């Protein structure tokens, strides 16, 4: 039988899915043992025990200085920033995506500009951002928004343009004004895509968050990673990176679920 037609059973599927992760862990373990045999205080690939130690220290022992559980305080700080930035970026994407997608005049005005600014490397403009917005939360949130919103807007514009022209015509024959068509025909149909667009940008959003926290912060997952990087404390960095990855993957899945729940008709469309 052709390999293309071979389908693994449920169990095989599960085992296969776990395999690469298992291999990664094993490779790490071996690498760690080898390096530690050479230099027992090597910090690059700490032993699993050291990782557990570090997790214990960061997550389940109160910090002597602040009395906080640093891991959780960092997580809260980062998620707060991320959540706010994603919310703002989503709102911007929605408004501009619809305006640019629906109205030829606004499209002519903004589409080329959007294409250009989505290519500006935001990290290079940080000084401007700081001076305009200060070093506080605002500038961190803004960096993330600037980093992801233009791409989300462009994605949504394409989505609006993908709506069958027939639908917009039909809506007009039903007496819909531009505004009404926007909120009753276009908006509900692009919302699911907005969620998908957000999912696609999660990785970038984390990236910008970490970059922002590396530049100036006193808490946050990215702050901690860059702080302890100074001492090559990979025993802290690895759990933090794994945790960030986990959070991102969970957010990804959660957003997908949200879309299915809130917009059941998107799934019906696929079934046919």
């Amino acid at each position, binding site marked *: 039988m052709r390999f293309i037609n071979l389908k693994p059973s449920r169990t095989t599927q599960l085992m296969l899915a776990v395999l690469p992760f298992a291999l990664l862990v094993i490779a790490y373990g071996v690498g760690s043992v080898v390096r530690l045999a050479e230099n027992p205080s090597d910090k690059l690939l700490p032993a699993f025990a050291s990782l557990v130690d570090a997790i214990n220290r960061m997550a389940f022992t109160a910090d002597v200085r602040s009395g906080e559980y640093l891991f959780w305080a960092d997580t809260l700080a980062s998620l707060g920033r991320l959540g706010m930035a994603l919310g703002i970026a989503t709102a911007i994407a929605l408004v501009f995506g619809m305006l640019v997608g629906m109205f030829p005049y606004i499209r002519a005005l903004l589409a080329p500009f959007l294409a250009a600014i989505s290519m500006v490397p935001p990290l290079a403009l940080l000084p401007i951002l700081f001076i305009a917005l200060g070093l506080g939360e605002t500038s961190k949130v803004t960096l993330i928004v600037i980093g992801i919103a233009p791409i989300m807007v462009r994605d949504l514009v394409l989505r609006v343009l993908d709506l069958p022209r*027939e639908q917009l015509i*039909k809506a007009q024959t039903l*007496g819909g004004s531009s505004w009404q068509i926007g909120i009753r025909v276009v908006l509900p149909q692009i919302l699911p895509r907005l969620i998908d667009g957000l999912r696609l940008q999660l990785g970038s959003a984390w990236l910008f968050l970490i970059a922002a926290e590396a530049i100036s912060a006193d808490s946050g997952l990215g702050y901690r990673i860059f702080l302890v990087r100074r001492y090559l404390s990979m025993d802290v960095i690895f759990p933090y990176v794994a945790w960030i990855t986990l959070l991102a993957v969970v957010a990804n899945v959660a957003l997908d679920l949200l879309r299915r729940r809130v917009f059941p008709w998107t799934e019906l469309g696929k079934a046919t």
Partner: protein
Amino acid sequence: MIRVENVWKEYGEQVVLERISLDIADRAFVALVGPSGCGKTTFLKLLLGEEQPSEGRITLDGQPLAPEPTPERGVVFQRYSVFPHLSVLDNVLIGRDFSGSPFRGRLGRVSRRAAADEARALIAEVGLSGNEDKYPAQLSGGMQQRLALAQALIMRPRVLLLDEPFGALDPGIRADIHVLMKRLWNETDLTVVMVTHDMREAFTLATRVIAFERPRNAPADRVRYGASLSSDIAVWPPRVAGLTDPDSTPYTFASPGGDDPAQATGPRRDDPAPPLAGAKP
């Protein structure tokens, strides 16, 4: 009455339609036939106001057509005529929502209940009772087209434009919907213009069958010459909306009506179906 006066339509270099002149009487049911790509859809777009003629003009009761779609002209396309994100009931109600609520685009509770009753009646009319809460994707193709009809009819349009509305349905379902279509046309104050590929459908439903054709169809001529009216056939015995029994049987056709600007020629391809075998050219 819709009057089309010497209309041309060009897209850039390409001439799609040329010298179209035509009067469509009130409550007529016009079937538009012609080979693929000859500009039937383009003509419908002109009537709809989605496109403007490059030359010539179109009037409705003497007034120039609004240059964009309006509720007086309803439309049903072959596909994408209903909104996938709305339930059947909401699909029919959306026209009322638009006219009743300029800002929210959705009626308030009380007025919506009243409108919903009307919508339910229309849904029943097109035979979709019991499906009010389903989404279009849960309906068959035929049911979706019925829904599109109900959705258009709630606006009580003067003119109903149909672009191959039943082209994707199977024959059994199509026969059912033909019966429905005839009834609606009879009972509603409606002028219908329908594009179809199916000669039988054209002659089953229409009071008048109009054929478009490109007189010069050689590849070299495709750009420079557009399609024009090649025949205009009044169906005989004449059907009159609200008068004749819509299911009166054997159809045949008379010689072209007086307003036929072109010499009548038969349809481009003979349909193999027996009813047309005896068609006069």
